[in-house]
């Protein structure tokens, strides 16, 4: 039930200050997602979404570093 998936923020609607919403694309499927808990999120960034709410931003640099460290780990063998 804690299933959360990464999606790209397409647009942000801040017309309701208590319920900041946005359109988030999950590989082309767009859904309305609440962005209220991510005050510094921008269009184009990736977020982790769960039951219609973005819980955190995805640190893209960190993700790339993890992958390259794990790749190097194999190359060193």
């Amino acid at each position, binding site marked *: *039930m*804690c*299933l*959360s*998936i*990464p999606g*790209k923020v397409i647009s942000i609607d801040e017309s309701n200050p*208590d*319920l900041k919403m946005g359109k988030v694309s*999950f*590989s082309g499927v767009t*859904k309305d997602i*609440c962005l*209220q*808990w*991510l*005050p510094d999120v921008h269009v184009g960034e*990736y977020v*982790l979404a*769960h*039951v*219609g*709410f973005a*819980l*955190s*931003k*995805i*640190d*893209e640099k*960190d*993700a790339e570093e*993890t*992958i390259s460290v*794990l*790749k190097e*780990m*194999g190359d060193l*063998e």
Partner: protein
Amino acid sequence: MKYLDEFRDSTLTKNLSEKIEKLTTQRWTIMEICGGQTHSILKYGIEELLPEKISLVHGPGCPVCVTPLEMIDKAVAIASRENVIFTSFGDMVRVPGSRHDLLAVKANGFDVRMVYSPLDAVNIAEKNKEKQVVFFAVGFETTAPANAMAVVEAARRGLKNFSILCSHVLVPPAIEALLSNPQTQIQAFLAAGHVCTVMGYEEYVPLSSRFKIPIVITGFEPVDILQGIYLAVKQLEEKKCEVENQYTRVVLKEGNSHARKLLATVFDIVDRPWRGIGVIPKSGFKLKDEFADYDAEKIFDVASISTKESSLCIAGEVLQGLKKPYACRAFKNNCTPEHPLGAPMVSSEGACAAYFHYKKVI
């Protein structure tokens, strides 16, 4: 899908599998706490990539599985009323109660609706002011802020016909209960990454040092899980017991402070019964008194419900990692995903359903 596919890469899983093999000198038992991780482990055959010396046991982190039978019966009782629209995540509608599940209530003509988000339930309440709209608020710390927001949003819109049937549970008290059981064989934990996106991981530090056990905050893709296992085995082999974060791309030490603040505004921490396990102290949320108008248990008179569990089902022992699903006499016989006796056979995140679908040879 970006940020999923690269963490399913077969070269990386092979590298990690080889590293774990080289590192392991003795038998270790590791529990993944979250049902989502159990599902990934079975789906991707991760146990087959591990040395024989490493055993994975599956934890109680499946809200569908641990929601008490009494709560399911209360949901069934509320949903079976004429003036109610009962809303729920899809998983919950098939969980067997003492007599029926919610899907049977729907089949009997009552208004039971599956929703993607608790905000959908608030919108249903706004469009159906002549009806009482109840949302079945289950889940761990990952889901609780969304349900808290639904209550706050209903209050902001002035809705008098929205309430939640609240059955939220918390991970750290469950870890404490599992480790306090003298029968436990758990030597390290993979903690639930998405719970920690909300809560951070500071509350795991005292648990790790008190029970002298490594706790690795871990993600959900095969590369994440294998890296989490690698970090846990490394700590075990080096006789360390620390809290470590594998899932750094989304989990911050402090979690999401805005979501946590909302939880503290809406909920109080209370003792909660866990299906198959029993009452765990301070292991769940209830609505604060100032939100009593949104508490379905207070609005509907469902206090005295007598419950009846299947006598065959061993879900409690499965949920504590004491037995594997195939140790149950009913597994694949009287109990299947189409006709489940216990909740772990219902949810795709339940250990029994994961074994049923993915474990070919037992």
